[in-house]
């Protein structure tokens, strides 16, 4: 009998809280999809170092577990309140609290399991779509496979069951603390409606808005330091809560002022409803707003990062394949052979980088560039890599022109006693300063600057670190070969593991201290945001490797963002729908006052629209300025020509679609609840 009761209750809950079930199904489906991706061989085939993706998704799932706990906990309490009378009846019939707790828990677990099962198929489809997207973004061909991973399903079940158990842990205590009288009269107690009495709190609205404007001005004028920014952000969060505290009074005040707007249609009713709703929900709404804004911003940032990645990677790895050796006489035979076995090496050039036993430029850079480091690891006469080489780095003009031609760059010319300074664009002012202040001497000659070049040329150890001095060939005998380099051009398809195979031919790693050690002091250059410095580099592989992390990050944040959005919107929607049945009489009265069906629907629409628009608009206002500013800085720094708003708009679009879906469900459900008896 109790089983029948439990199952019937589940059925009813599924109907009453359909939106909750749907949300849990969506969350379940997303989790299945992402966990499935972790175990997918298709995903592993893209890129060998797959752990990054698994780690990111694992992290996201960890957070999502808390979101699920929050949502389930909220819903459980909500149902507990709505069904208190029913639980009271159980008690009257002589059921023990233990029994009721068990029934209630079991109901929720069944509801959870049902949503998980419903999520299986969509999850599988999502997984295929996501993998397809992954392949498309990384520019790799993908053939759809129907592979299915039971591990992904198991992990999802595990995480969700754990979340449910944790969310339900306190139910027993709740039941225990409650007296039968509370159950029977709880719904009556809740009928009390909170009204904002005084309107002085409306001042909070103005204070909050003033602070938000102040904050945005600070952002635009870059008036915050790295440390003070945290204080300002805490202030911003406080301002948002304050805004909601004040908003209720603000509306009441507006009504009391008898502005002519309130005399139009049922605006008076709508505003009153809203004022009392905001008053009871202000903390929840404040939290929702902050988290919406955060989600929007993080999406924007990630999309920017993805774009930056794409451009920057092409800059950093202009050659299809490159290799480094700390010996001046390396032939690269082994590397060339491995490359030839695996790909079509159509052209290559091997050459030396030279030194003249001095390091004034490197010293200058160490003292002028932020974030440089010097490695202190020494072992058996070998050492680890630093930001710059032990000596300043030189190159012959013929080699220089040879590799320039590989990249399709025009030939450089030098007269005797001239040099070219080739460096990274990011330190262009330092290059200028070097050419003005540091004399370049080779043998007995002091060289004049011919020009400064800044095309991307792999200056993260291959062609020097950050810079390179190009001298006429006839001066090379005055210099000492420092280390060897090979760069090449690949035609056709490049296997995803070429990089790994080439790395296998090199033996720099000292396993006892887990550090790569070299016979010379190797420089990696000062690129920080995204640095690709290695002893062998296969452009295609590295591009995917680099993009892979960023694309994974995109997926993870989108995953987190959408789950959060759905959970938050579910709470807003469930609130509204239960209000619809609880306060049905209010709309009955409106009808008795002469409103027809269409007019009532209009009132509902207006009421819901304002309710939903509050957190929506406030979070957009909050994020738009910061997002715009970030976009603008980003374009300024990276030189990537994209419309300022592009990233933000895209994120906003996703956000709005999800938002709109819940709004529509809420509206339709509201009207249906009003009409049902």
């Amino acid at each position, binding site marked *: *009998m*109790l089983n*029948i*009761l439990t199952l*019937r*209750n589940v*059925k*009813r809950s599924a109907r009453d809280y359909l939106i909750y079930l749907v949300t849990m199904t969506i969350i379940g489906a997303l989790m299945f999809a992402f966990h499935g991706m972790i175990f997918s061989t298709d995903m592993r085939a893209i890129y060998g170092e797959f752990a990054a993706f698994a780690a990111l998704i694992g992290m996201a799932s960890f957070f999502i577990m808390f979101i699920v706990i929050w949502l389930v906990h909220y819903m459980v309490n909500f149902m507990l309140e709505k069904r208190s*009378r*029913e639980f*009271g*009846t159980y*008690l*009257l*019939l*002589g*059921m*023990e*609290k233990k029994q009721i707790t068990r029934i209630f828990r079991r109901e929720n677990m069944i509801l959870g399991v049902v949503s998980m099962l419903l999520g299986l198929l969509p999850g599988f489809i999502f997984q295929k779509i996501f993998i397809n997207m992954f392949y498309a973004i990384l520019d790799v061909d993908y053939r759809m496979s129907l592979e299915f991973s039971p591990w992904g399903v198991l992990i999802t079940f595990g995480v969700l069951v754990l979340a449910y158990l944790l969310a339900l842990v306190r139910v027993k205590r709740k039941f225990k603390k409650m007296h*039968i*009288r509370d159950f*029977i009269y709880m719904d009556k107690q809740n009928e009390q409606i909170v009204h904002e009495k005084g309107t002085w709190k409306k001042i909070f609205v103005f204070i909050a808005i003033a602070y938000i404007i102040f904050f945005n001005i600070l952002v635009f004028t870059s008036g915050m330091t790295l440390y003070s920014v945290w204080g300002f952000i805490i202030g911003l969060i406080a301002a948002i809560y304050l805004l909601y505290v004040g908003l209720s009074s603000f509306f009441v005040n507006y009504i009391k002022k008898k502005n002519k707007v309130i005399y139009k249609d049922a605006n008076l009713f709508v505003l009153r409803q809203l004022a009392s709703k905001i008053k009871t929900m202000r903390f929840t709404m404040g939290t929702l707003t902050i988290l919406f804004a955060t989600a929007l911003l993080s999406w924007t940032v990630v999309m920017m990062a993805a774009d930056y990645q794409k451009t920057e990677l092409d800059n950093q790895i202009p050659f299809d394949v490159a290799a480094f050796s700390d010996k001046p006489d390396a032939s690269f035979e082994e590397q060339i052979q491995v490359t030839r076995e695996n790909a079509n090496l159509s052209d290559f050039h091997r050459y030396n980088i030279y030194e003249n036993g001095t390091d004034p430029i490197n010293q200058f850079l160490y003292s002028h560039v932020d974030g440089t480091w010097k490695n202190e690891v020494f072992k058996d006469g070998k050492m680890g890599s630093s930001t710059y080489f032990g000596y300043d780095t030189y190159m012959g003009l013929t080699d220089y022109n040879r590799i320039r031609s590989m990249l399709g760059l025009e030939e450089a010319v030098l007269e005797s006693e001239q040099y070219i300074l080739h460096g990274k664009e990011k330190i262009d002012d330092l290059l200028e300063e070097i050419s003005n202040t540091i004399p370049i001497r080779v043998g007995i000659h002091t060289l004049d600057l011919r020009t400064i070049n800044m095309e991307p040329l792999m200056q993260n150890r291959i062609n020097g670190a950050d810079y390179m001095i190009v001298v006429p060939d006839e001066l090379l005998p005055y210099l000492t070969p420092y280390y060897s380099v090979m760069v090449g051009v690949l035609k056709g398809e490049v296997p995803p593991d070429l990089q790994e195979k080439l790395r296998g031919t090199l033996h720099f790693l000292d396993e006892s201290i887990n550090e790569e050690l070299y016979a010379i002091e190797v420089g990696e250059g000062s690129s920080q945001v995204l640095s690709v410095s290695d002893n062998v580099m296969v452009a295609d592989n590295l591009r995917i490797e680099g993009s892979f992390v960023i694309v994974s990050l995109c997926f993870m944040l989108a995953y987190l963002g959408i789950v959060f959005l759905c959970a938050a919107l579910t709470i807003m929607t469930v609130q509204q729908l239960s209000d619809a049945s609880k306060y049905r009489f209010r709309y009955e009265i409106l009808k008795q006052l002469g409103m027809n069906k269409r007019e009532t629907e209009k009132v509902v629409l207006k009421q819901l629209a304002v309710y939903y628009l509050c957190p929506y608009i406030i979070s957009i206002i909050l994020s738009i300025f910061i997002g715009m500013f970030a976009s603008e800085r980003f374009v300024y720094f990276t030189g990537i020509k994209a419309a300022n708003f592009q990233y933000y708009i895209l994120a906003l679009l996703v956000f709005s679609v999800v938002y709109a879906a819940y709004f529509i469900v809420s509206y339709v459900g509201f009207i249906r609840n009003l009409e049902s008896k």
Partner: protein
Amino acid sequence: MMERLIYADKVEKYYGAKGNMTKALNRVEFEIGKGEFTGIMGASGSGKSTLLNVLSTIDNVTAGHIYFESTDITALKEEQLAEFRKEKLGFVFQDFNLLDTLTIEENITLAITLQSKQKQKADRRAEEVMKQLGIYEIRSKFPYEVSGGQKQRCACARAVVNHPMIIMADEPTGALDSKAAQILLDTFVTLNEEMDSTILMVTHDVFSASYCKRILFLKDGEIFHELIRGGKGRRDFLNQILDVLSLTGGGVTNA
């Protein structure tokens, strides 16, 4: 003389904190005998629902004792109370309190199975009661599919099905039309006379009260009058009740 079933010994119930105390029940003392059909009447705020709540263990007393036969229920622990409710009490509420996910029959069966009776016995007992109360035909319908009167009779069936010591009814006719109310009250009389159930009914409706055999009148948390029907007809009793009420309505406070 009837055997004593309930004895309320100077029961007090206060609400609120110091300074703003409401005395809902003030040293209420009375007895209810086995097989009695007792009504409690009073204006709203007189404490009649509070009295029913403390008698039915839904609420606890501030002071005083309530004895069911020899058991002092004010001294019972929560788990013992649950057991007590399950075995000794039957409830009928104004708004029925039926479980909307169960059919009429299942609502009754659940009450039996909670006492862990065997399935066959439970079915037979449920059938028997449903037939007695005239809801057998609608047994497989859900509460929302039947009328208020039928719902209330289902609640009655659920209340009597375990042969409780007493049935507590809180405004049982409050949500019914006059025809359905009359049928329900006839049901109560049947339960009382033919099945020997003891019934305690709270009501503010004179017509309902006239079905009782004895009425306690409550005012400001105290019993201020008692009527016993004795051999009188229902109509005479009704008039008598009206007389008492008219007295309290204007008379007592002005006197």
